[in-house]
């Protein structure tokens, strides 16, 4: 079953970048997080709008053609679950 991921309610992000390191401050929680380019891109995608897991997977496979789709989905799942653990994102079952 597909899932929809979105920013957790109350999350408001402020970004700052140095080279390939991204810092993001969550005004909702007061926490500061350090992300690499890939996970920052993922969070910024969720920030723009809610995303189906399947759509995120397709976009990532397109972006990283040299990586197998299994590895992409594994990385995607781990990253999204980490966002959920940090209070940045939430998941709901798609209809």
């Amino acid at each position, binding site marked *: 079953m597909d899932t929809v991921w979105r920013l957790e309610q109350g999350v408001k992000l402020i970004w*700052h970048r*140095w080279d390939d390191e991204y*810092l993001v401050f969550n*005004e909702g929680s007061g926490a*500061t997080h*350090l992300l690499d380019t890939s996970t920052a891109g993922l969070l910024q995608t969720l920030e723009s709008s809610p995303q189906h897991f399947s759509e995120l997977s397709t976009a990532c496979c397109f972006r990283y053609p040299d990586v197998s789709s299994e590895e992409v989905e594994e990385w995607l799942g781990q990253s999204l679950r980490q966002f959920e653990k940090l209070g940045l994102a939430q998941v709901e079952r798609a209809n």
Partner: protein
Amino acid sequence: MRLGEHSPEQVRTILAETGLILHTGPFITKISSASPELADGLSLLYSEAQMAEQAEFIDFHIRIDSPKSIRRWFSPQIYFYFDGFKPFNPFPVEQALPLFEWCLNWSISQHAHQYLIIHAAVIEKGGRAVIMPAPPGSGKSTLCAGLVNRGWRLLSDELTLLSLQDGSAVPLARPVGLKNNSIDVIRSFAPEATISAVTRDTHKGAVAMMKPPAESVRRIGERATPAWVIFPRYVADSDAELVPHSKAEACLELGENAFNYSIHGAEGFQLLTGLLDNCDCYDFSYSRLSDAVEIFSELESSRG
């Protein structure tokens, strides 16, 4: 009028009767105590500090005194009072001077939220400041004490106050706390420095205070722009080494070392990221102060 213009006897009297009101960096602190040891310590270490008028607004009211109980006759203790409240358990009476320093640090870190306050030393040369965050035992204060005896201006050995308006570092220029072996290290490195008597058996071991250089106190109104964030670490018998440090990780570490980052929220985040945009960041390991002086001098020269 400087405190040093009063004799130690006069300082004892003022401290015990009306209270001593001093400019301590950007704050005005009123200190009251019947402890002659504290009075003599203040006379020694704060002789360059300006006294304030009774009519000026007082930021911190501090009293350090013994309870009026039978306890004062055996194992006498002293309490720290902040605005009339006792936030801590008592200390042995012989620890009056270090207790005052620790408690003034506590007062500032818990209440001066008009600044972003980081647990870090900060020194300056040529208008540019080095911020040195480090956990206890890393050699931060020893390094700070060494450098301010070799041409760097002391802003603080313990609390970096950053202006929320422009991120500049605000001087405190108070005594530098030395512990255990570092006391003899600084006595040997800077024999001209004034160091208080050693207080033993504190929770930090043996401690003493180094008087801030007179020029650092005279220039207390001069802020400095941070140009470097350096994470120092004493490593016995090592050669001095300066290694670049990630700005993003430095930002996280500054936030973790700040007393009030969570209070300032987005403003604190933007202050730190803006500060680091203009700073070079390094890890610095050393064992000899002479090596540290040379490395810091090269760093300062390289900025032009």
